[in-house]
């Protein structure tokens, strides 16, 4: 499927989605509500069987979650983005139940950005010590060891 076909298909299942086609991949912006249900729908309808990247971006006024999805059968790639506007206490749905690889990816996002994933089976820090304070990849992160340039 090419980007145009993908867009038509997604619009059928998720009318609230908006798009950015400026890059190589089709970027679809999904609402934060019912996110896990929407992702499960996309996986089933578009055969998106492979989640090859899950990360987050801190834009200061909001946090953007980014999901890169691939269909191994149909060879199409789709990027899903979600805005989380509550930066003080960011919370969203986990996709662990849909793609198992999301387990560690979401733990990394939790470790670095402090995003809480609902219904994650084992949400704890993956790289940093368990008693680490704060979320180091947030733009407003500071600690006593850091030397600002």
């Amino acid at each position, binding site marked *: 499927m090419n980007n145009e076909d993908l867009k038509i298909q997604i619009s059928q299942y998720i009318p609230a989605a908006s798009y950015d086609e400026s890059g190589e991949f089709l970027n679809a912006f999904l609402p934060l509500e019912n996110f896990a249900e929407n992702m499960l729908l996309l996986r089933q309808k578009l055969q998106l069987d492979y989640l090859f990247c899950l990360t987050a971006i801190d834009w200061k006024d909001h946090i953007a979650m980014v999901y890169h999805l691939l269909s191994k059968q149909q060879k199409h790639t789709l990027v899903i983005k979600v805005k989380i506007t509550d930066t003080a206490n960011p919370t969203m749905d986990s996709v662990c139940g849909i793609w198992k690889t999301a387990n560690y990816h979401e733990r990394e996002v939790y470790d670095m950005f402090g995003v809480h994933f609902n219904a994650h089976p084992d949400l704890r820090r993956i*790289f*940093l*010590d368990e008693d680490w304070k704060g979320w*180091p990849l947030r733009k407003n*992160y500071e*600690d006593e*060891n*850091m*030397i*600002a*340039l």
Partner: protein
Amino acid sequence: MDVKDKLIFPGQVHETADGGILVTKLDEAINWARANSLWPLVFGTSCCAIEMMSAADAKYDWSRFGFEVARASPRQADLIIVAGTIVMKMAPVLKRLYDQMADPKYVIAMGACTISGGPFFYNTYSVVKGVDHIIPVDVYIPGCPPRPEALLHGMIALQEKIKNEPYFRKKKD
């Protein structure tokens, strides 16, 4: 002075009918033995470790100077070459390895990261800004990463340091 001259035993042989008497100083004899048989610990945390492996291999071959037996256990090692970035999570591990080494023990800080944090000095949450915050360092080798020649130079400088320290006349702490 050539590197080879440093391998010569510090003492004189007084020829006698039965074969000769060796005259030397204990300090110098012990230091000569220790300096020419420094066993490094297998410890590398990033790209400097690749240069360190290169220095150990046939082309640069640090065994020419007595470093041939890299040990996988700190209890058998005399020297730890801190080759690579040390992060906060690695710091307690490095301290523990150093504590497990038997005296006398030496530390070489190889590369910019171990000297000061190097390229990770500013705006980082994870990198230790100089390995000398954790363990005492004998020789610093700048570079990012240093070439194997630079590492060999640093190691020979350490041998020189060992040979010049008074072993039996150490100041008590």
